[in-house]
């Protein structure tokens, strides 16, 4: 290995340790368990170091590591399911939490009406938006949050989620609808309350 190659490798190792806390918070949102999240990240980082040779190019290093982490998270999710750590999703199919948001006639309750969040670009660049998102994800029931994160954080299709979770696609849509309504309500409370 030439001097500059090992320098680049050193730089990548530094980037790994810099990115680690955020990877852990990403994994935790999905695994709902800090120790398991840390394990998954540890495995992903070890794999990234081991496979360092197969990474080519300077840019997109974190994205590459992220890709590895996603596989590790999926493995951990499957292990959780095998160990019986997933509560049945049928419990989440009751309408109560959603019904409270709407009047009998199907219109929004006055106090549940969505308000503007301002510029979405600004939100995504704001550290506080991510704190609110994190808090709201943690507040969701585990089994709803898991379906939401498989869909929106891991980018699985609803068909793939059905296979992983052993549910019908229609139930998957119902759960995602609920997750989105609850998340948006929670984020709105957190995001708009402190901003102004």
């Amino acid at each position, binding site marked *: 290995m030439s001097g500059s190659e090992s320098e680049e490798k050193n730089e990548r190792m*530094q*980037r790994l340790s*810099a*990115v680690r806390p*955020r*990877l852990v918070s*990403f994994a935790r949102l999905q695994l709902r368990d800090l120790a398991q999240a840390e394990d998954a990240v540890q495995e992903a980082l070890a794999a990234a170091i081991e496979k360092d040779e197969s990474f080519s190019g300077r*840019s997109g290093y*974190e*994205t590459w590591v*992220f890709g590895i982490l996603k596989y590790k998270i999926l493995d951990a999710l499957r292990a959780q399911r095998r160990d019986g750590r997933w509560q049945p999703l049928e419990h989440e199919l009751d309408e109560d939490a*959603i019904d409270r*948001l*709407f009047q009998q*006639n*199907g*219109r*929004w309750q006055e106090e549940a*009406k*969505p*308000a*503007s*969040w301002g510029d*979405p670009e600004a*939100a*995504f*660049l704001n550290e506080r938006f*991510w704190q609110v*998102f994190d808090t709201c994800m943690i507040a969701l029931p585990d089994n709803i949050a898991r379906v939401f994160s498989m*869909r*929106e*954080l*891991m*980018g699985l*299709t*609803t068909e793939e989620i059905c296979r992983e979770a052993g549910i019908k*696609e229609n139930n*998957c*849509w119902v759960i*995602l*609808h609920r997750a*989105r*309504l609850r*998340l*948006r309500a929670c*984020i*709105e409370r957190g995001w708009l309350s402190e901003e102004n």
Partner: protein
Amino acid sequence: MFKMMMCKEATRLMSKRLDAPLSFQEKLSLKLHLAMCDACTECNKQFTLLHEVGHRFEVFVSDTPDNGGGAHNE
């Protein structure tokens, strides 16, 4: 007679739209409802934003303070 779709059903369609294609009829009803309902228009924007959250999280993660901060300009 044409029955106007209500907000609850509209939110169901604006969620489903992100996971599967809507039928022509569903698209049309949703579009009509959104044209007339400000609250659902905001909700639709927020669902769309949540749909981008995974990608944005990756950008946010990659943009740690000491890697040059170039990740915003993709």
